[in-house]
Protein backbone atom coordinates (compact mmCIF):
# COMPACT_ATOMS: atom_id res chain seq x y z
CA UNK A 1 0.00 0.00 0.00
CA UNK A 2 1.04 3.60 -0.42
CA UNK A 3 2.82 5.10 2.55
CA UNK A 4 2.91 8.76 3.54
CA UNK A 5 6.41 9.17 4.94
CA UNK A 6 6.72 12.90 5.46
CA UNK A 7 5.48 16.42 4.96
CA UNK A 8 7.37 19.48 3.81
CA UNK A 9 6.44 23.10 4.25
CA UNK A 10 8.06 25.64 1.98
CA UNK A 11 7.33 29.10 0.66
CA UNK A 12 6.94 29.19 -3.12
CA UNK A 13 8.46 32.61 -3.82
CA UNK A 14 8.79 33.09 -7.61
CA UNK A 15 12.12 34.93 -7.20
CA UNK A 16 13.71 31.67 -6.00
CA UNK A 17 12.85 30.01 -9.29
CA UNK A 18 13.96 33.07 -11.23
CA UNK A 19 17.32 33.11 -9.39
CA UNK A 20 17.89 29.46 -10.33
CA UNK A 21 16.68 29.86 -13.91
CA UNK A 22 18.93 32.86 -14.52
CA UNK A 23 22.03 31.43 -12.83
CA UNK A 24 22.12 33.83 -9.88
CA UNK A 25 22.42 31.24 -7.14
CA UNK A 26 26.08 32.15 -6.48
CA UNK A 27 25.22 35.75 -5.62
CA UNK A 28 25.59 36.42 -1.91
CA UNK A 29 21.87 37.17 -1.42
CA UNK A 30 20.92 33.80 -2.90
CA UNK A 31 23.88 31.71 -1.82
CA UNK A 32 22.91 31.81 1.84
CA UNK A 33 19.36 30.79 0.96
CA UNK A 34 20.46 27.80 -1.08
CA UNK A 35 22.88 26.77 1.66
CA UNK A 36 19.93 26.80 4.01
CA UNK A 37 17.88 24.69 1.63
CA UNK A 38 20.61 22.12 0.94
CA UNK A 39 19.94 19.81 3.92
CA UNK A 40 16.32 19.43 2.77
CA UNK A 41 17.56 18.57 -0.74
CA UNK A 42 19.90 15.98 0.77
CA UNK A 43 17.00 14.53 2.74
CA UNK A 44 14.87 14.35 -0.42
CA UNK A 45 17.70 12.69 -2.39
CA UNK A 46 17.97 10.06 0.32
CA UNK A 47 14.24 9.37 0.71
CA UNK A 48 13.37 9.41 -3.01
CA UNK A 49 9.57 9.45 -2.70
CA UNK A 50 7.83 8.14 -5.81
CA UNK A 51 5.03 10.68 -5.54
CA UNK A 52 4.74 14.19 -4.12
CA UNK A 53 1.33 15.65 -3.41
CA UNK A 54 1.90 19.39 -3.75
CA UNK A 55 -0.62 21.69 -2.12
CA UNK A 56 -0.33 25.14 -3.65
CA UNK A 57 -2.28 28.00 -5.11
CA UNK A 58 -2.47 29.07 -8.71
CA UNK A 59 -1.68 32.77 -9.30
CA UNK A 60 -4.03 33.63 -12.15
CA UNK A 61 -2.20 31.24 -14.48
CA UNK A 62 -4.38 28.16 -14.98
CA UNK A 63 -7.43 29.66 -13.29
CA UNK A 64 -8.87 33.12 -13.68
CA UNK A 65 -11.93 34.70 -12.09
CA UNK A 66 -14.10 32.87 -14.62
CA UNK A 67 -14.37 29.95 -12.23
CA UNK A 68 -13.03 29.85 -8.68
CA UNK A 69 -12.60 26.48 -6.98
CA UNK A 70 -11.91 26.28 -3.30
CA UNK A 71 -10.18 22.90 -3.57
CA UNK A 72 -9.09 21.22 -6.81
CA UNK A 73 -6.99 18.21 -7.72
CA UNK A 74 -5.05 17.57 -10.93
CA UNK A 75 -5.55 14.09 -12.37
CA UNK A 76 -3.69 14.48 -15.68
CA UNK A 77 -0.66 12.48 -16.84
CA UNK A 78 1.34 15.67 -17.15
CA UNK A 79 1.22 19.36 -16.36
CA UNK A 80 3.25 21.84 -18.46
CA UNK A 81 4.87 24.91 -16.85
CA UNK A 82 2.63 27.97 -17.25
CA UNK A 83 3.47 31.22 -19.02
CA UNK A 84 3.24 33.80 -16.26
CA UNK A 85 4.11 36.69 -18.54
CA UNK A 86 7.80 35.90 -19.09
CA UNK A 87 7.29 32.77 -21.17
CA UNK A 88 7.09 29.42 -19.34
CA UNK A 89 9.85 28.58 -16.83
CA UNK A 90 12.47 26.38 -18.45
CA UNK A 91 11.89 23.48 -16.09
CA UNK A 92 10.80 19.92 -16.89
CA UNK A 93 7.16 19.15 -17.56
CA UNK A 94 5.58 17.84 -14.36
CA UNK A 95 4.57 14.18 -14.58
CA UNK A 96 1.34 13.26 -12.83
CA UNK A 97 0.12 9.95 -11.43
CA UNK A 98 -3.34 9.81 -12.91
CA UNK A 99 -4.54 6.56 -11.33
CA UNK A 100 -3.45 7.64 -7.85
CA UNK A 101 -4.86 11.13 -8.35
CA UNK A 102 -8.25 9.73 -9.37
CA UNK A 103 -8.19 7.44 -6.36
CA UNK A 104 -7.59 10.44 -4.11
CA UNK A 105 -10.25 12.54 -5.90
CA UNK A 106 -12.89 9.82 -5.50
CA UNK A 107 -11.91 9.11 -1.92
CA UNK A 108 -12.06 12.81 -0.98
CA UNK A 109 -15.46 13.38 -2.54
CA UNK A 110 -16.84 10.22 -0.91
CA UNK A 111 -15.38 11.68 2.29
CA UNK A 112 -17.46 14.89 1.84
CA UNK A 113 -14.72 17.08 0.35
CA UNK A 114 -16.21 18.32 -2.92
CA UNK A 115 -13.12 18.59 -5.07
CA UNK A 116 -12.94 20.13 -8.51
CA UNK A 117 -11.29 17.59 -10.81
CA UNK A 118 -8.83 18.98 -13.34
CA UNK A 119 -7.81 17.05 -16.43
CA UNK A 120 -5.86 19.82 -18.06
CA UNK A 121 -3.89 22.67 -16.56
CA UNK A 122 -0.52 24.39 -16.69
CA UNK A 123 1.26 24.75 -13.35
CA UNK A 124 2.83 28.01 -12.24
CA UNK A 125 5.56 28.96 -9.76
CA UNK A 126 3.32 27.92 -6.88
CA UNK A 127 4.03 24.31 -7.82
CA UNK A 128 7.30 24.45 -9.75
CA UNK A 129 9.26 26.53 -7.22
CA UNK A 130 8.74 23.95 -4.44
CA UNK A 131 10.05 21.31 -6.86
CA UNK A 132 13.07 23.53 -7.61
CA UNK A 133 13.60 24.07 -3.88
CA UNK A 134 13.64 20.35 -3.19
CA UNK A 135 15.29 18.97 -6.34
CA UNK A 136 17.50 21.76 -7.74
CA UNK A 137 17.73 21.55 -11.56
CA UNK A 138 17.37 17.95 -12.76
CA UNK A 139 16.71 17.03 -16.41
CA UNK A 140 13.47 15.38 -15.25
CA UNK A 141 11.68 15.80 -11.92
CA UNK A 142 12.50 12.66 -9.90
CA UNK A 143 8.95 12.18 -8.63
CA UNK A 144 5.43 12.08 -9.98
CA UNK A 145 3.27 14.93 -8.74
CA UNK A 146 -0.35 15.25 -7.71
CA UNK A 147 -1.29 18.94 -7.62
CA UNK A 148 -3.85 20.05 -5.04
CA UNK A 149 -4.89 23.65 -5.68
CA UNK A 150 -6.39 25.81 -2.96
CA UNK A 151 -8.08 29.16 -3.43
CA UNK A 152 -6.24 31.59 -1.17
CA UNK A 153 -6.82 34.67 -3.34
CA UNK A 154 -10.59 35.18 -3.37
CA UNK A 155 -12.11 35.87 0.06
CA UNK A 156 -13.37 33.83 1.86
CA UNK A 157 -10.48 31.40 1.69
CA UNK A 158 -11.04 27.97 3.28
CA UNK A 159 -10.48 28.03 7.04
CA UNK A 160 -7.44 26.52 8.71
CA UNK A 161 -9.63 23.87 10.26
CA UNK A 162 -11.18 22.90 6.95
CA UNK A 163 -7.71 22.65 5.43
CA UNK A 164 -6.43 20.51 8.29
CA UNK A 165 -9.40 18.16 7.91
CA UNK A 166 -8.83 17.96 4.15
CA UNK A 167 -5.31 16.84 5.00
CA UNK A 168 -6.72 14.08 7.17
CA UNK A 169 -8.95 12.97 4.30
CA UNK A 170 -5.97 12.98 1.92
CA UNK A 171 -4.17 10.72 4.40
CA UNK A 172 -7.06 8.24 4.36
CA UNK A 173 -6.91 8.26 0.57
CA UNK A 174 -3.15 7.64 0.50
CA UNK A 175 -3.41 4.83 3.06
CA UNK A 176 -5.98 3.04 0.92
CA UNK A 177 -4.09 3.19 -2.40
CA UNK A 178 -2.91 -0.18 -3.60
CA UNK A 179 0.59 0.59 -4.90
CA UNK A 180 3.67 0.11 -2.74
CA UNK A 181 5.04 3.63 -3.06
CA UNK A 182 6.39 6.26 -0.74
CA UNK A 183 4.58 9.58 -0.74
CA UNK A 184 5.55 13.03 0.51
CA UNK A 185 3.06 15.88 0.88
CA UNK A 186 4.14 19.49 0.52
CA UNK A 187 2.31 22.49 1.90
CA UNK A 188 3.51 25.62 0.16
CA UNK A 189 3.27 29.40 0.36
CA UNK A 190 3.63 31.77 3.29
CA UNK A 191 5.06 32.69 5.69
CA UNK A 192 4.16 36.28 6.54
CA UNK A 193 4.09 38.60 3.55
CA UNK A 194 1.96 41.24 1.94
CA UNK A 195 2.37 42.09 -1.72
CA UNK A 196 -0.33 44.74 -2.06
CA UNK A 197 -1.36 48.16 -0.84
CA UNK A 198 0.31 50.78 1.33
CA UNK A 199 1.20 48.05 3.84
CA UNK A 200 3.17 46.02 1.28
CA UNK A 201 6.28 44.45 2.76
CA UNK A 202 4.88 43.71 6.19
CA UNK A 203 6.69 40.83 7.94
CA UNK A 204 5.85 39.32 11.33
CA UNK A 205 8.60 36.92 12.37
CA UNK A 206 7.19 36.55 15.87
CA UNK A 207 3.82 35.37 14.55
CA UNK A 208 5.54 33.04 12.07
CA UNK A 209 7.78 31.45 14.68
CA UNK A 210 4.92 30.81 17.09
CA UNK A 211 2.71 29.54 14.29
CA UNK A 212 5.41 27.22 12.97
CA UNK A 213 6.12 25.75 16.40
CA UNK A 214 2.44 25.16 16.99
CA UNK A 215 1.94 23.71 13.50
CA UNK A 216 4.59 21.09 14.28
CA UNK A 217 3.78 20.29 17.91
CA UNK A 218 0.15 21.18 18.52
CA UNK A 219 -1.66 21.97 15.27
CA UNK A 220 -5.05 21.86 17.01
CA UNK A 221 -4.11 25.05 18.83
CA UNK A 222 -3.93 27.11 15.62
CA UNK A 223 -6.89 25.72 13.67
CA UNK A 224 -9.19 28.50 14.82
CA UNK A 225 -7.02 31.41 13.72
CA UNK A 226 -9.44 33.54 11.71
CA UNK A 227 -8.90 34.81 8.20
CA UNK A 228 -8.76 38.36 9.50
CA UNK A 229 -6.09 37.42 12.03
CA UNK A 230 -3.96 35.93 9.23
CA UNK A 231 -4.47 39.09 7.12
CA UNK A 232 -3.70 41.36 10.05
CA UNK A 233 -0.78 39.48 11.60
CA UNK A 234 0.80 37.66 8.65
CA UNK A 235 -0.14 40.05 5.82
CA UNK A 236 -2.88 39.63 3.25
CA UNK A 237 -0.89 36.94 1.43
CA UNK A 238 0.24 35.27 4.67
CA UNK A 239 -3.05 33.41 4.69
CA UNK A 240 -1.32 30.98 2.32
CA UNK A 241 -0.16 29.30 5.53
CA UNK A 242 -3.49 27.46 5.66
CA UNK A 243 -2.05 25.27 2.89
CA UNK A 244 0.62 24.06 5.31
CA UNK A 245 -2.23 22.86 7.54
CA UNK A 246 -3.39 20.51 4.77
CA UNK A 247 0.11 19.01 4.80
CA UNK A 248 0.09 18.80 8.60
CA UNK A 249 -3.35 17.23 8.71
CA UNK A 250 -2.14 14.42 6.47
CA UNK A 251 0.67 13.51 8.89
CA UNK A 252 0.57 11.56 12.14
CA UNK A 253 -0.40 13.38 15.32
CA UNK A 254 3.25 13.23 16.41
CA UNK A 255 5.99 14.01 13.94
CA UNK A 256 9.75 14.51 14.02
CA UNK A 257 10.86 17.84 12.66
CA UNK A 258 14.13 16.79 11.03
CA UNK A 259 14.96 20.16 9.50
CA UNK A 260 13.89 23.79 9.67
CA UNK A 261 15.25 26.88 7.98
CA UNK A 262 13.84 30.38 7.87
CA UNK A 263 15.08 33.66 6.47
CA UNK A 264 13.99 37.31 6.28
CA UNK A 265 13.71 38.40 3.59
CA UNK A 266 13.44 36.42 0.44
CA UNK A 267 11.97 38.92 -2.00
CA UNK A 268 9.06 40.44 0.00
CA UNK A 269 8.56 37.40 2.17
CA UNK A 270 9.60 35.64 5.34
CA UNK A 271 10.86 32.39 3.86
CA UNK A 272 10.14 29.16 5.74
CA UNK A 273 11.13 25.53 5.18
CA UNK A 274 10.37 22.55 7.39
CA UNK A 275 10.69 18.78 6.97
CA UNK A 276 8.39 16.67 9.14
CA UNK A 277 8.71 12.88 9.27
CA UNK A 278 6.04 10.48 10.39
CA UNK A 279 7.39 8.35 13.21
CA UNK A 280 6.09 4.95 12.08
Amino acid sequence: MAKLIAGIGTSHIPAIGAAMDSGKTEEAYWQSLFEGIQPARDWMAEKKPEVCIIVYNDHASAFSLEAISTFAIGVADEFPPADEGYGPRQVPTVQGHSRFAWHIAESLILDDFDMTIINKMPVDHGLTVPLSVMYDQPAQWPCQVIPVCVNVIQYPQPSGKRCYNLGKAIRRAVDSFDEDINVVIMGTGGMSHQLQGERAGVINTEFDKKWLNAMVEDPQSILDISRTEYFREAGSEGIELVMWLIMRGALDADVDEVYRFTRVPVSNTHYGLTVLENQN
Partner: protein
Amino acid sequence: MRETRDYDDIPGTYIFDGEHSRAGYHLNMFCMSLNEVVNRQAFADNQSTYLDRYPMTVEQKTAVLDRDWLAMLRLGGNIYYTFKIAVFDQLSMQHVAALMSGNAAMTVDDFRQMMLAGGRPIDGNRSKKEQQHG
Protein backbone atom coordinates in the same frame (compact mmCIF):
# COMPACT_ATOMS: atom_id res chain seq x y z
CA MET B 1 -22.27 49.07 0.31
CA ARG B 2 -21.93 45.93 2.33
CA GLU B 3 -21.82 45.76 6.11
CA THR B 4 -18.62 46.66 7.95
CA ARG B 5 -16.26 43.73 8.35
CA ASP B 6 -13.48 43.19 10.86
CA TYR B 7 -10.78 43.27 8.17
CA ASP B 8 -11.84 46.78 7.07
CA ASP B 9 -9.75 48.02 9.98
CA ILE B 10 -6.46 46.68 8.54
CA PRO B 11 -4.60 49.65 7.10
CA GLY B 12 -3.26 49.74 3.54
CA THR B 13 -4.80 46.37 2.69
CA TYR B 14 -7.41 45.55 0.05
CA ILE B 15 -9.11 42.26 0.87
CA PHE B 16 -10.30 40.68 -2.36
CA ASP B 17 -13.84 39.86 -1.28
CA GLY B 18 -17.00 39.47 -3.33
CA GLU B 19 -17.68 43.18 -3.63
CA HIS B 20 -14.12 43.81 -4.71
CA SER B 21 -14.10 40.92 -7.16
CA ARG B 22 -17.38 42.04 -8.72
CA ALA B 23 -16.08 45.58 -9.23
CA GLY B 24 -12.76 44.42 -10.62
CA TYR B 25 -13.80 41.49 -12.78
CA HIS B 26 -13.10 43.02 -16.20
CA LEU B 27 -9.98 44.85 -15.00
CA ASN B 28 -8.58 41.59 -13.68
CA MET B 29 -9.59 39.64 -16.78
CA PHE B 30 -7.76 42.20 -18.93
CA CYS B 31 -4.66 41.59 -16.76
CA MET B 32 -5.13 37.84 -17.11
CA SER B 33 -5.09 38.17 -20.90
CA LEU B 34 -1.44 39.28 -20.70
CA ASN B 35 -0.53 35.66 -19.96
CA GLU B 36 -0.68 35.12 -23.72
CA VAL B 37 2.15 36.40 -25.86
CA VAL B 38 -0.17 37.45 -28.69
CA ASN B 39 -2.11 39.66 -26.28
CA ARG B 40 1.06 41.14 -24.81
CA GLN B 41 2.02 42.12 -28.34
CA ALA B 42 -1.38 43.67 -29.03
CA PHE B 43 -1.22 45.60 -25.74
CA ALA B 44 2.29 46.78 -26.62
CA ASP B 45 1.09 47.98 -30.04
CA ASN B 46 -1.61 50.24 -28.62
CA GLN B 47 -2.45 50.07 -24.94
CA SER B 48 -5.54 52.24 -25.04
CA THR B 49 -7.08 50.42 -28.01
CA TYR B 50 -6.34 47.07 -26.41
CA LEU B 51 -8.13 48.10 -23.20
CA ASP B 52 -11.25 48.85 -25.24
CA ARG B 53 -11.65 45.11 -25.76
CA TYR B 54 -12.66 44.91 -22.10
CA PRO B 55 -15.79 46.51 -20.63
CA MET B 56 -13.81 48.27 -17.91
CA THR B 57 -14.79 51.59 -16.37
CA VAL B 58 -13.07 54.78 -17.51
CA GLU B 59 -11.45 55.02 -14.06
CA GLN B 60 -10.05 51.52 -14.39
CA LYS B 61 -8.66 52.20 -17.86
CA THR B 62 -7.08 55.44 -16.66
CA ALA B 63 -5.53 53.69 -13.66
CA VAL B 64 -4.00 51.09 -15.97
CA LEU B 65 -2.65 53.64 -18.45
CA ASP B 66 -1.28 55.79 -15.58
CA ARG B 67 0.14 52.71 -13.84
CA ASP B 68 -1.60 53.89 -10.68
CA TRP B 69 -1.15 50.66 -8.74
CA LEU B 70 -3.11 51.74 -5.67
CA ALA B 71 -6.00 53.03 -7.77
CA MET B 72 -6.15 49.67 -9.53
CA LEU B 73 -6.49 47.95 -6.15
CA ARG B 74 -9.18 50.40 -5.02
CA LEU B 75 -11.11 49.78 -8.25
CA GLY B 76 -11.25 46.03 -7.70
CA GLY B 77 -7.88 44.92 -8.98
CA ASN B 78 -6.15 42.02 -7.31
CA ILE B 79 -2.38 42.15 -6.96
CA TYR B 80 -1.80 38.77 -8.64
CA TYR B 81 -3.66 40.11 -11.67
CA THR B 82 -2.37 43.69 -11.70
CA PHE B 83 1.15 42.35 -11.26
CA LYS B 84 0.86 41.00 -14.79
CA ILE B 85 1.02 44.62 -15.97
CA ALA B 86 4.20 45.03 -13.93
CA VAL B 87 5.66 41.93 -15.59
CA PHE B 88 4.71 43.45 -18.94
CA ASP B 89 6.58 46.64 -17.88
CA GLN B 90 9.51 44.51 -16.68
CA LEU B 91 9.08 45.77 -13.14
CA SER B 92 9.72 43.56 -10.13
CA MET B 93 7.30 43.01 -7.25
CA GLN B 94 9.58 45.24 -5.16
CA HIS B 95 9.23 48.07 -7.69
CA VAL B 96 5.46 47.87 -7.49
CA ALA B 97 5.54 47.49 -3.72
CA ALA B 98 7.61 50.66 -3.38
CA LEU B 99 5.19 52.53 -5.63
CA MET B 100 2.21 51.32 -3.56
CA SER B 101 3.77 52.23 -0.24
CA GLY B 102 1.72 55.38 0.15
CA ASN B 103 4.95 57.28 0.60
CA ALA B 104 5.69 58.99 -2.70
CA ALA B 105 9.33 59.38 -1.73
CA MET B 106 9.94 55.65 -1.26
CA THR B 107 12.30 54.37 -3.94
CA VAL B 108 12.80 50.76 -4.92
CA ASP B 109 16.13 50.87 -3.09
CA ASP B 110 14.42 52.16 0.03
CA PHE B 111 11.93 49.33 -0.18
CA ARG B 112 14.67 46.76 -0.73
CA GLN B 113 16.57 48.14 2.26
CA MET B 114 13.42 47.98 4.39
CA MET B 115 13.01 44.31 3.45
CA LEU B 116 16.68 43.55 4.18
CA ALA B 117 16.23 45.19 7.58
CA GLY B 118 13.41 42.79 8.44
CA GLY B 119 10.48 44.10 6.41
CA ARG B 120 7.81 46.63 7.21
CA PRO B 121 7.27 46.36 10.97
CA ILE B 122 4.01 44.76 12.05
CA ASP B 123 3.91 46.91 15.18
CA GLY B 124 1.95 50.05 14.41
CA ASN B 125 0.51 48.54 11.23
CA ARG B 126 -2.06 46.09 12.57
CA SER B 127 -5.06 48.40 12.55
CA LYS B 128 -6.11 51.87 11.55
CA LYS B 129 -6.88 52.50 15.20
CA GLU B 130 -3.34 51.48 16.18
CA GLN B 131 -1.92 53.78 13.49
CA GLN B 132 -3.94 56.73 14.74
CA HIS B 133 -2.95 56.23 18.35
CA GLY B 134 0.48 55.02 17.29
